[in-house]
């Protein structure tokens, strides 16, 4: 039989998809597992961090515990602790019976009875309360009446109660009470319980006080945590919940989850990288900062930047990816975060790198090209004041015109009487307003003339080149200032030869003409000695490389003899503020003798004669330099100038520069000087009103990265990982024309910023400063803008930096002044010659005296060649010619640093009047052999004062504050560590201080404080008393 061919199976129907289905189902399942794993494990690295932390921290604590326990044991063995423990035992024993009695009554009688009554009572009470509610909310009087009846019923109902007996026997009595009776008993029991509880506390009070004392003692003596505290931490680790730890500050929408991984940040135990082995668990350094800036209020990311919200990876959390615009600050730039809130300051505590950056910005003259809000405010304030004055003058003119019109109307016979009266009143009003405007104008004028004095330029005035400089030196300097003087502030520009020649020619030809006085040559040998001791080295330096000696605030003078002439140096050293010609800002002209002759006036100008003969405008009569006058005698000045002219390299030679007189180069040079922004740092004739040529840097840290011109380095920067602000700033500061590399540009198109030859740490400090200069995301309330005394501290530091007070004086703890680094002052004999330290100056001196002193440190109009207070110091406190505003700010600064109240009212009158006996006693003590006072302190007697090394006592009553003087005499080393004033001059006897040496017989039976006696004596000095002490006339 022929077989039917087996039919071919229909592929659609017969194909089995089971294998494909199985595989794809498995694949889907695996992706699901992967998804879950990704979600719970990979994307939540903080879980692993937390479990590691728990393990490592527990181990660390367990290691720590025995040592701490041992330390604690040691404290337990000390005498104080033992005594306290014993006292506690005794007190406990004493209080025990009373406590026992009270507790007995409480626990055996009151409490059980209360408990047995409570339930029923509360039940009935709540029933009544519910009915009362119904009563209050019931509608009509009828329903109220019925509810009232219900309430009465409930109250009257009697209940069976099994109450524990009140006698404490434990027995139970049966009572049948209504609500009123229950309530009475309940209240009674509760009251009794409260009474007993207060009694218990009172009885235990001495014990708890002693226990507190004991715990405080242990806490004081203990370094680190006690064993119990560590145990507490271990318990915390046992129950450690694994979750996101976040700080949420609502008002600024801040969410910071940093602590989910950085778990050791606020742990009470000090953790370093070594403690737990991982840097992430290290504790926050400088815990003081966390006390000032509580993370619960500030979070972490406002200071550190980074992406506080992110938790999925370290890169995301630290913000080191393309789309997070505020990446975490690196360790070396961490202080950048301080700048956004502390933007007013130039000195911020705990932020030394930032402070250095700010000081570099200010001191190196970055401000000459780049505006930065807060730096160099004086010219802008001056302009604002002038504008305001002009505006008020216009308003005043309007007012006067209106007054004239009003008077016209009043005088008009056609005006009715009432109208005339009204107009008169109006005229008076206008007059008063005009007067107010005059007052304001006067104040603004004072402000403006103050500001004129305060405006300073970073570099020397180039109007003086013709009288000051050797002309051949100018192009050499412009070519490369760094070559001539390694430590100069002036940066090196990238100029072609023609440009240098043109600029030099322009400067030479635009300088003012003038004649210098002709002085005879001084003695250079004496001059060297004077130079090294009068204090010049606090700002200036001599010597190069590692032989450099002195401060870096001002120029290094090793080669000054090559550039300038003797006569100019004499004028300069005598008074640096003296200039050849005054400048009138209105006419934009340096006035010469001819201008003065036209107005019939002699060619004389100084601070007292500062009015322009042509238009009455205020002239700039000073050189805009911060260098002060040291009040030297003519001879001293000539000697120093002679010494300076010897400072030169004998082999240095200068090529002739005839082009300097070429008039054709002048115009070109001027436009080049304008192009390169020379007037930003120097005063130049014709360019006095030039603006700054660089970008404003106030918010440079917030500049979108796309606006920073990486030129051809965009892609390499992205690939190498420095395509961010830090990368840009660092490279720019190191080599300002870095981003010009590879570009084809004409000379004038190239980047203009010159090279400042900054060292690595300086670049880092400036980068930190710029990174922090951002548009703050925090609201104004978070910024540090105090309006109280702390503002005075902020303002004061600007002046301190401006005039380099810290070159001579110590103003902050652990800050060496430049003086202290000089080799001469390492000799112990010269230590006494150091200028006084000013920490606590506000607490020490009367601010009124300080104002006088700062205005004229000689404290005399006639005898100026001296220090008014410490004539024995060779170093000279200079006359800075501060404006009134600056003096005011400085005095407030010192007062604020010492938290002194303003205004200061001399408590002289509060001092107990000295009796004659006391005066004699004090004098005898003072002059006795046992008292060392007169060995050091000056008295005004020239013979005695030749060996004096401390201020004159007569100055005390005007200068010092009695409270400070008292504290000073008792413990000078605490106030000024290292002072020569001896300590332990007094010892404590009961409640008073007694002189710690042989006292004169007149002191027998004297029961009052000796130190206070001496203070009163000093503050009630009379001139005859001083004479009696053996002095002459003491200058003050």
């Amino acid at each position, binding site marked *: 039989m022929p077989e039917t061919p087996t*039919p*071919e199976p*229909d592929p659609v129907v017969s194909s089995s*998809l089971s294998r494909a289905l199985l595989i794809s189902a498995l694949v*889907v399942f695996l992706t699901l597992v*992967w998804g879950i794993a990704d979600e719970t494990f990979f994307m939540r690295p903080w879980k692993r961090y937390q479990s590691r932390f728990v393990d490592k921290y527990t181990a660390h604590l367990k290691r720590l515990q025995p040592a701490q326990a041992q330390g604690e044991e040691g404290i337990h063995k000390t005498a104080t602790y033992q005594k306290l423990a014993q006292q506690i035992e005794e007190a406990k024993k004493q209080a025990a019976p009373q406590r026992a009695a009270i507790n007995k009554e409480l626990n055996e009688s009151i409490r059980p009875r209360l408990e047995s009554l409570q339930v029923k009572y509360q039940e009935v009470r709540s029933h009544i309360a519910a009915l009362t509610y119904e009563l209050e909310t019931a509608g009509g009087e009828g329903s109220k009446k019925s509810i009232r009846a219900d309430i009465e019923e409930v109250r009257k109902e009697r209940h069976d109660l099994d109450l524990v007996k009140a006698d404490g026997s434990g027995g139970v009595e049966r009572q049948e009470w209504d609500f009123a009776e229950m309530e009475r008993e309940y209240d009674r029991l509760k009251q009794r319980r409260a009474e007993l509880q207060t009694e218990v506390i009172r009885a235990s009070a001495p014990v708890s006080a002693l226990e507190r004392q004991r715990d405080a003692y242990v806490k004081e003596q203990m370094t680190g945590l006690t064993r119990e505290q560590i145990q507490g931490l271990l318990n915390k680790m046992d129950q450690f919940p694994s979750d996101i730890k976040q700080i949420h500050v609502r008002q600024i929408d801040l969410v910071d989850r940093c602590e989910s991984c950085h778990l050791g940040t606020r742990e009470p135990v000090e953790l370093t990288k070594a403690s737990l082995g991982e840097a992430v668990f290290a504790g926050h350094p400088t815990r003081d900062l966390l006390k000032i800036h509580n993370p619960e209020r500030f979070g972490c990311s406002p200071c550190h930047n980074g992406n506080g919200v992110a938790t999925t990876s370290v890169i995301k959390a630290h913000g080191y990816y393309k*789309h997070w615009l505020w990446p975490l600050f690196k360790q070396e730039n961490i202080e950048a975060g301080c700048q956004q809130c502390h933007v007013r300051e130039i000195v911020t505590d705990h932020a030394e790198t930032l402070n250095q950056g700010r000081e570099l910005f200010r001191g190196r003259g970055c401000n000459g090209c780049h505006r930065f809000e807060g730096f160099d405010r004086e010219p802008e304030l001056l302009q604002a004041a002038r504008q305001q004055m002009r505006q008020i003058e216009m308003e005043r003119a309007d007012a006067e015109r209106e007054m004239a019109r009003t008077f016209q109307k009043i005088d008009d016979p056609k005006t009715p009487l009432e109208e005339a009266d009204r107009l008169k009143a109006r005229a008076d009003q206008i007059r008063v307003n005009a007067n107010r405007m005059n007052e304001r104008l006067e104040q603004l004028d004072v402000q403006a003339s103050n500001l004129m004095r305060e405006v300073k330029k970073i570099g020397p005035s180039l109007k003086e080149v013709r009288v000051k400089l050797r002309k051949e030196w100018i192009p050499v300097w412009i070519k490369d200032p760094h070559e001539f003087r390694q430590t100069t502030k002036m940066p090196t520009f990238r100029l072609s030869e023609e440009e240098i020649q043109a600029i030099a020619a322009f400067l030479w030809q635009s300088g003012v003409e003038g004649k210098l006085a002709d002085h005879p040559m001084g003695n250079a040998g004496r001059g060297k000695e004077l130079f090294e001791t009068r204090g010049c080295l606090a700002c200036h330096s001599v010597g190069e490389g590692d032989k450099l000696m002195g401060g870096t605030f001002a120029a290094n003078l090793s080669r000054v003899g090559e550039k300038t002439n003797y006569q100019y140096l004499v004028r300069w050293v005598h008074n640096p503020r003296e200039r050849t010609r005054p400048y009138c800002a209105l006419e934009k002209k340096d006035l010469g003798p001819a201008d003065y002759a036209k107005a019939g006036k002699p060619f004389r100008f100084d601070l007292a004669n500062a009015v322009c003969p042509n238009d009455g405008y205020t002239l700039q009569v000073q050189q805009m330099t911060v260098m002060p006058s040291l009040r030297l005698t003519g001879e001293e000045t000539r000697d120093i100038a002679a010494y300076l002219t010897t400072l030169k390299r004998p082999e240095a030679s200068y090529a002739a520069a005839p082009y300097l007189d070429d008039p054709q180069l002048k115009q070109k040079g001027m436009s080049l000087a304008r192009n390169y922004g020379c007037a930003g740092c120097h005063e130049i004739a014709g360019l006095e009103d030039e603006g700054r040529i660089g970008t404003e840097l106030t918010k440079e840290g917030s500049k979108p990265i796309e606006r920073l011109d990486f030129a051809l380095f*965009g892609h390499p920067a992205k*690939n190498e990982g420095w395509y961010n602000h830090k990368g840009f700033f660092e490279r720019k500061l190191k080599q300002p024309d870095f981003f010009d590399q590879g570009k084809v540009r004409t000379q004038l198109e190239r980047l203009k910023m010159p090279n400042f030859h900054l060292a690595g740490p300086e670049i880092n400090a400036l980068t930190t400063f710029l990174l922090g200069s951002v548009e703050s995301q925090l609201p104004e309330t978070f910024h540090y803008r105090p309006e109280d005394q702390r503002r005075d501290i902020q303002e004061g530091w600007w002046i301190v930096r401006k005039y380099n007070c810290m070159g001579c004086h110590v103003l902050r703890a652990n800050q060496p002044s430049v003086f202290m680094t000089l080799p001469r002052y390492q000799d112990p004999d010269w230590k006494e010659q150091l200028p006084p330290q000013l920490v606590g100056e506000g607490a020490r001196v009367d601010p009124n005296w300080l104002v006088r002193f700062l205005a004229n440190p000689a404290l005399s109009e006639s005898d100026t060649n001296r220090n008014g207070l410490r004539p024995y110091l060779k170093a000279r406190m200079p006359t800075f010619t501060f404006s009134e505003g600056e003096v005011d700010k400085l005095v407030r600064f010192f007062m604020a640093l010492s938290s002194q109240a303003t205004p200061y009212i001399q408590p002289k009158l509060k001092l107990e009047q000295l009796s004659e006996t006391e005066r004699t006693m004090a004098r005898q003590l003072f002059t006795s052999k046992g008292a060392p006072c007169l060995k050091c302190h000056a008295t005004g007697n020239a013979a005695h004062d030749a060996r004096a090394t401390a201020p004159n006592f007569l100055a005390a009553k005007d200068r010092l504050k009695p409270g400070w003087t008292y504290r000073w005499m008792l413990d000078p080393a605490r106030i000024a560590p290292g002072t020569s004033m001896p300590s332990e001059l007094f010892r404590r006897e009961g409640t008073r201080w007694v002189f710690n040496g042989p006292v004169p017989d007149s002191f027998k039976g004297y029961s009052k404080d000796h130190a206070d006696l001496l203070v009163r004596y000093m503050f009630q000095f009379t001139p005859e008393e001083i004479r009696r002490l053996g002095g002459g006339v003491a200058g003050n």
Partner: protein
Amino acid sequence: MDWAQIWEIAVTPDNVPITALLFLAPFYTWYGLRQAFANDRLIAQLEASPEMAKTHHRKVQAWKPGWAREVHTWPYLLRIEFLALLIVTAILMVWSITLDAPLEEPANPNLTMNPAKAPWYFLGLQEMLVYFDPWMAGVVLPTLIIVGLMAIPYIDANPLGAGYYTYRQRKWAIWTFLVGFLGLWVSMVIIGTFIRGPGWMWFWPGVTWDHDRLVFEANRDLPDLVGITSMAGKSIFGGFVSLLYVAGAGWAFHKLITRPGFNRKIYERMNILQYVTMQLLLILMLSLPMKMLAKLVFRIKYVWITPWFNI
């Protein structure tokens, strides 16, 4: 050859679907056409032998005896669909786990992104802006595209090819579609994604996207090229040129659709309204590649300048 640049563009999460499109569009075009050619072969076979036609009908696979005439949706279709579902789910899971939706920096109205690109479905329009003015490229042409797509069922006079792939019977439609879709849509999207870089400048693949790149491209208008300066003159000249183009394109399309064979049959079935509509739409469609040619190769910007519109 900057491979890093190519990689960076290709794996930007927003661009990943377009990278996929680079492979998927040609693949599915090929897949569909393959089926169409297979169908065409079958059709030819059936037309050649009327006997077969009776039994084989129009099937992709020849029916064999013993098979069911129809198969049930459940389970046969649905199980295949389920497999597809599983595979697509797996792909989606892998995609979502590996690629996160991008969260970029906070929007800053003062700082626009460069390049500021539209989402992919508008990239074609953004590209058209290079060749047409905003009125044309943003309003007129898109409207006409939509209107044209809606009009297709009404001007499609070809009754064949419904429900099965075929090339021979649908040549006109397939070519129109491929040119319009792949040529004028997908390729615009791809150009917009991969070629257009900062400043909307043309960057060949492998060239680094340099934001500071400067190119010199002096575009000129056609009337200026010929020397016409007055506005009236430009309007008239432009109108003339456009008319020339319309006439030329219309003649070309007419020639194409009246070619002997299938096209002719379609042509004969069309009524005048359908024909005119089809011509208009095709002429408008062709204007884009023409303008692209003019701009990219001949640097000609506008052809017809009037006070009211520029083309």
